[in-house]
């Protein structure tokens, strides 16, 4: 056991100290931060900070004329200016003193009509909601304080599935896309770890170190240590991504309205965490087998590229998930070992995935992973001592069947 950890630590440090790893791992968070900064700059620089006027012909907006800033207003709440008549408001609009003005007509209480007059662009949503709150505040002055507060707050609808596993809040449309991003990150991180693992195995072959390894530990300890080290690498990458994204979203939410209602789908994260280990082990087993069969990393990468497709297949069926998230194809991809993780991530926000599908998927991916790792250990033992020779399919099957080296 001790040697397994020695190998795991060695592999982890070997990869994480590489410049290519630092670049590859930090590139995506930096890209994310750059996009976030760009969005914030565009949003803030493009925000019209000028006041919004209003003409109260209905005589309603008297009791409350100013509002305290709220979280919804963002860092720059727009000022609301009262005008005695529309001519004055129009002059202010034409001279650019205000960005727009509302007209509350005399028959507002019966017609409920409100006019918004603007010059070039409709004021941003938070500015419009600020005026909306001003109207509500004045309309509810005669109500008890708690009733008034509730009326001003408006409705907050959350749609929840009968079993409580699935819920869609009204806060932000962005929540629907969170599982998609998680699926995307998984694919990038885990598949890149698979590539590292392939390299780690072929490295032993190319460097001719396998005999020394074989006389120092079991092949199980060697490949187990490598896989464990690379899983730690994957988790490090995920950790860096998650921390960057969380910080990015927290900062971004100060400026970007769409990010304010963002919440993490914890039940989905927990489900995916259950699938992560067996899925990673399955990829690891495949990469070890491929690495043991080929003579150099480049050959292995070609085969690994084809195998990676098995894991990223669900991306090609996104349209199917949107249009028919409970179709037979979606079910098959949910229970198929290589596609279950990503399919669950992609379907999560679109439907309530039946529990049986996830249980069957988890069992199948776990059993497949165990079988794959077992077979990989046998192929590894046979393939690694064949310096400069590619292991053919026949020999590979014999190795799996008998465990023999020759």
């Amino acid at each position, binding site marked *: 056991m001790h040697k397994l950890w020695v190998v795991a630590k*060695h592999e982890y440090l070997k990869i994480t100290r590489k410049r290519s790893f630092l670049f590859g791992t930090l590139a995506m968070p930096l890209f994310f931060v750059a996009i976030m900064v760009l969005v914030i700059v565009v949003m803030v620089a493009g925000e019209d900070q000028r006041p919004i006027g209003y003409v109260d012909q209905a005589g309603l907006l008297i009791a409350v004329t100013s509002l305290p800033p709220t979280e919804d207003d963002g860092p720059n709440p727009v000022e609301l200016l009262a005008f005695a008549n529309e001519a004055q408001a129009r002059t202010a609009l034409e001279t650019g003193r205000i960005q727009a003005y509302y007209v509350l007509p005399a028959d507002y209480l019966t017609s409920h009509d409100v006019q918004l007059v603007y010059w070039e662009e409709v004021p941003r949503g938070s500015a419009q909601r600020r005026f909306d709150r001003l109207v509500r505040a004045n309309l509810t002055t005669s109500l008890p304080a708690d009733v008034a507060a509730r009326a001003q707050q408006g409705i907050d609808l959350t749609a929840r599935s009968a079993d409580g596993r699935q819920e869609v809040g009204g806060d932000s449309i962005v929540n629907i896309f969170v599982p998609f991003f998680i699926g995307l990150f998984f694919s990038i991180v885990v598949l890149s770890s698979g590539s590292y693992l392939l390299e780690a195995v072929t490295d032993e072959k190319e460097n001719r170190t396998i005999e020394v390894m074989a006389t120092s530990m079991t092949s199980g300890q060697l490949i187990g240590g490598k896989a464990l080290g690379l899983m730690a690498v994957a988790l490090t990458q995920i950790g860096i991504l998650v921390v960057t994204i969380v910080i990015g979203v927290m900062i971004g939410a100060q400026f970007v309205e769409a990010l304010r209602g963002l919440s993490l789908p914890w039940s989905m994260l927990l489900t995916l965490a259950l699938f992560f280990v067996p899925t990673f082990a399955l990829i690891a087993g495949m990469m070890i087998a491929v690495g043991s069969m080929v003579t150099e990393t480049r050959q292995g990468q070609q085969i690994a590229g084809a195998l990676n497709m098995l894991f990223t297949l669900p991306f090609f069926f996104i349209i199917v998930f949107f249009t028919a998230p409970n179709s037979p194809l979606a079910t098959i991809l949910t229970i198929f070992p290589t596609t279950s993780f990503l399919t669950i991530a992609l379907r999560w926000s679109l439907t309530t995935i039946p529990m049986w599908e996830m249980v069957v998927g988890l069992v199948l991916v776990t059993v497949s992973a165990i079988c794959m790792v077992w077979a990989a250990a046998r192929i590894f033992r046979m393939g690694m001592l064949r310096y400069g020779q590619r292991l053919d399919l026949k020999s590979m099957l014999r190795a799996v069947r008998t465990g023999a080296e020759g």
Partner: protein
Amino acid sequence: MTTPTAMVSHLSKSFGAVRAVEDVSFEVYPGEIFGLLGPNGAGKTTSIRMMLDIFNADRGEISVLGGKMDEAKKNRIGYLPEERGLYKDLKLEPTLIFLARLKGLSEAEAKRRLPDWLKRLDLYDHRYKKVQELSKGMQQKAQVIATLLHEPELIVIDEPFAGLDPVNTRLVEDIIREQQAAGRTIVMSTHQMHQVEALCSRIALINKGRTVLYGEVDQIKHSFAGNAVTITGQGDFLNVPGVLEARQDNGDWRMSLAPGTGPQDVFKALAARDGIKIERFEIAEPSLDDIFIWTVQGRQEPNHA
């Protein structure tokens, strides 16, 4: 009777249709340097790999350090394989520490022992270089360190002098002798017969997957000595009765004797001649090189029974 440190008995191993080892047997005793000889493809490396549990034998018995090979015994063995290799893109010092840790050494102990070895093998100034930046000879010496740093009881070295210049060959030779003097058992596979003669007390010669010669070096040489004598001296050494052939080689005379003629008969005949001065007279023993070639090529020294 002393229990052998390593014993293989009637080993055989096939790879598909290829029979790599047919019937190999030998025993290695504590504190000895045992030579495993044989031409390319004879089955030496495969036999070593089976002995060290890298390959499973199809048939035969193996005993290492008092029984079947297990994980704990791996820490008591140092192996320098024929297929040399170190992690090329890693620095030398961490690589050697990592390999020592895989042999059960703590990091602190490995760090404590390493500088002396690096200095002795003239690698200390290169310890922070990547392995791929070292010369082939330096990499070879680094692997010698990796084989010995954990102070193994059984040392298995496959072609330990390949790629070394004469100075480093001498250095490695000295290290091997020191290891033996420290009580360690050494199995050395090599083609270099003069190294075998200089270092090994016993050998096994493997040819076509079988042990064809096995025993003490002196006895084997003696058994191949046959009916020949080597003489150093002055005078007429031609036409001696009972001598089939007399030829001069580097000033010495080598005489092949006819069946029924013994060295004593030749000595007497020469002593009876006038003008003969004998400085040295000895029964000619063939070199291990000759024995190797005769055995591998299926020829025997003319008078070897």
